């Protein structure tokens, strides 16, 4: 029997890896992928707690998170395409017109 804390530790580790990726990379797509990684670590935590508490709520929230992630990916990628058309780059260090 695998203790539930292992799953939670794994989720925390994945979340940390995702955070490092989102903060460090310059490529917009890779940042997006790191954010998806963070969302997935949250999903894992939710399912783990759903198992621990014997409740379906965790699984259902994961369902909604899945749908929201899909919506976010669609709109985010459309934004990337639009930005790319104008600026010819996805490097977020160069898409900086609103920077101070």
């Amino acid at each position, binding site marked *: *029997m*695998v*203790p*539930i*804390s292992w*799953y*939670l*530790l*794994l989720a*925390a*580790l*994945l*979340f*940390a*890896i*995702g*955070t*490092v*990726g989102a903060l*460090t990379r*310059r*490529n917009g*797509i*890779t940042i*997006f*992928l*790191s954010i*998806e*990684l963070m969302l*997935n670590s949250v*999903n*894992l935590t939710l*399912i783990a707690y*759903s*198992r*621990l508490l*014997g409740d*379906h709520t965790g*699984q*259902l929230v994961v*369902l*909604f998170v*899945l*749908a*929201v*992630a*899909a*919506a*976010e*990916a*669609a*709109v985010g*990628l*459309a934004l*990337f*395409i*639009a930005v790319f*058309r104008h600026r010819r780059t*996805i*490097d977020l260090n160069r898409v900086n017109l609103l920077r101070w």
Partner: protein
Amino acid sequence: MIETLVFLVFAGLAVGSALLVVLHRNPVYSTVSLVVTLVSIAVLFVLLGAPFIGALQVLVYTGAIVVLFLFVVMLLNIGREEIAGERSLLQKGAAAAGAGIFLLMGAGLLWRQTSSVTLDELSPELVSLRALAGELFARYLLTFELVGLLLLVAVIAATVLAARTRPGERLSLDRPFAAEVDDEPSRPAAAEER
């Protein structure tokens, strides 16, 4: 015992491919590594008594969302990221922040979990689809409908954002896909823009 083995294998796979996602320079490899991570996490879902959510994760996340990512990466021909020296300090700081977050969360979790919590056996009630669906369409019906609405809005938003406009022309509400309409074929500027 088999459960522990499966967990260790797929947890290791998940962490390894997550590191690849974050560290690899080529965005296509990052995306493919994300696929491996997502499938490993789906296996862990099944291990935790949520086979339908695991199957849905593979079907929706890897089967559609990440394909969309790959499509955009290939369409825009996003190349490998150049290595720049100025990145190193920021990178170290971010890595330290990440490790710090992990340690804080891990320590906090383990502190709470030290009182040995024993898991109940996996009840068929938890795994069954009927119970899951019953709760989804009873308690969470409003949320379900709202998520449907959210997806509709996302579809419209994505379509409008990615539609092409000629320079100087704006998307108008009565002709939102103006770039598709074959008007003014004799304009030289239009041919040049293509």
